[in-house]
């Protein structure tokens, strides 16, 4: 995983509430056995019509969206299935952070493990971002905040461990493997065996 301290990018806005992981990557793309190339499947049923042509009215298909690395979405983003293909697809497409007022637990966990920054902001900041697509926003993992073009900042929750992992590109499996003695001790000492 790459180290992330802070980055600045323009936003693309999808104002719908409750965007679920079936929209982010429809199930028929889950038959893959690797994570590569999933960016093509990102929002497939919203991006393409039944003939496979891009729908011009969809935000990601508009010229202004090219190169945008931050997704601003409606309330409660990422609910539904546990498919890690969702953050994989967003990252593969070039999205590095998702901003909403609420982000579903499993999606949030999956994002943090892959270096996609889940940003939960207050309703005012969120409302402003929804109303101003395409602005440049800085996502600052170090400071746990985002900065808007007028200099305003908004904090977002990020526990110390997840912040440390993002800043240092730490892969959490390495950390868990270091606990193997404690795990063995636990297995031997427990009152019952599963």
């Amino acid at each position, binding site marked *: 995983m790459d180290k992330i301290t802070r980055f600045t990018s323009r936003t693309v806005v999808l104002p719908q509430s409750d965007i*679920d992981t079936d929209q982010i990557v429809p199930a028929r793309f889950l038959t893959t056995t690797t994570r590569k190339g999933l960016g093509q499947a990102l929002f497939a049923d919203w991006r393409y019509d039944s003939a496979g042509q891009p729908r011009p009215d969809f935000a990601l298909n508009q010229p202004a969206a090219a190169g945008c690395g931050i997704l601003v979405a*409606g309330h409660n983003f990422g609910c539904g299935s546990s498919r*890690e293909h969702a953050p994989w697809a967003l990252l593969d497409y070039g999205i590095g952070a998702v901003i909403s007022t609420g982000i579903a637990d499993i999606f949030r966990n999956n994002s943090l493990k892959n270096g996609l920054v889940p940003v939960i902001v207050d309703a005012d900041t969120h409302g402003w971002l929804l109303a101003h697509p395409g602005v440049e926003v800085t996502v600052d993992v170090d400071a746990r905040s985002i900065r808007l073009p007028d200099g305003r900042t908004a904090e977002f929750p990020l*526990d*110390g461990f997840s912040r440390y992992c993002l800043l240092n590109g730490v892969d959490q499996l390495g950390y868990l493997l270091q606990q193997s003695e404690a*795990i063995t001790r636990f297995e031997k000492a427990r009152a019952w065996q599963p």
Partner: protein
Amino acid sequence: MTARSLFEKVWDDHQVVAETADTPAVLYIDLHLIHEVTTPEAFNVLKSRGLPVRRPDLTLATLDHSTPTLPIRSLADLDALVGAPAAKQIRVMLDNCREAGIRMLDFDSGQRGIVHVIGPELGITQPGKTIVCGDSHTSTHGAFGALAFGIGTTEVGHVLATQCLLQRKPKTLAINVNGRLARGVGAKDIILAIIGRIGVGGGTGHVIEYRGETISALSMEQRMTICNMSIEGGARAGMIAPDDTTIGYLAGRPLAPSGAAWDQAVRRWRALPADPGARYDREVSLDVAKLAPMITFGTNPGMVIPIDGAVPADTGDASFRKSLQYMGVEAGKPMLGRPVDVVFIGSCTNSRLSDLREAASLLQGRKVSGSVKVMIVPGSQTVKQQAEAEGLDRVFTAAGAEWRESGCSMCLGMNGDTVARGQLCVSTSNRNFEGRQGIGARTVLASPLTAAAAAVTGRISDPRELLAR
């Protein structure tokens, strides 16, 4: 000692390393269920780092998601039935499990089925265990008083390699359900009503504990239906305290403890229910005495109404309008009487024997209406055998429904079973998201009884009327 909830007891019992302000807890996992879709990349990571599977004996594998529901004679049939990529995924899964020494309930085992159906029916889902799977409906197993939740593929790799997960302690939400259910109203209606009440993000960050006299009176299969859909309310896990019903269900199951080990286990399980005075971060109460059968009208499970109610009025909200437009329904109008194209009875929510019996009670001696396509898919091969032993399959086929091999089937469009664009499907599954059952498919979530009523009438119908006839 302070009074602890069911969740807190299970959590405390599995902390290898306690959480601190700076670091999450290291939580031990007693049972890791795996299936073909969310594991290949996890095995790739282990292989690339030269890591073995730490506890293949605590891992159980099956095939369900991309698996066909038509009979296969040999693995060579797979490509034709589900397509080359899904067939490859299944083969990769079989190879990975063989190499790692993981028990695989495959096509030949006779015990294959939806991962959340087979854990309980084999008796390996037990009170007080921590259970995870790369699937969000792992919450189902919480019906036994286990702490069970869905994880992503990276975490599947963590559990394969270390049998542990890094976790922050979630908050607790008690949902108290009281009142006696009316005839024709069941567990699916309760959980749909709960999700309608708390919203699809209402349980985010929480583990739900379902409590109250209504819950205590439910069978294990009904409790599983409730816990299954906890994730649809945003909660990763839903739990119900173990009691005589739980213990009675597990007794004699193939992978449940036996002899002296059984007695010890039962003593341990009896200590799991919340202590008097245990505290929850939030509480919600629901009286279900007047509850009607519930159905969804929109594109998430929180968009739900009583079957005899009307779609809510237009609030002007863009997401709401988009959802209604996708579904082809109108604000302020009833759902009752709308023509139905497909009926699906199955999925980890409602594919167990009691669900099939309910559906059969309405289909017995009746015919599927005109052009409605009705698919009934048992949750496991074991359920299939039991249903056939009772003659349920003949009730279904005589009515004109299709009876299939077990699997996820039409719950998600990735195994060949799909709903066509624009068609309306009354489904006993758990997600009515856009495109969930196929591109452009319209899903109405309902109980097995409501689904069976739609099959018979060809329209969205109140099952209470058919039951009264």
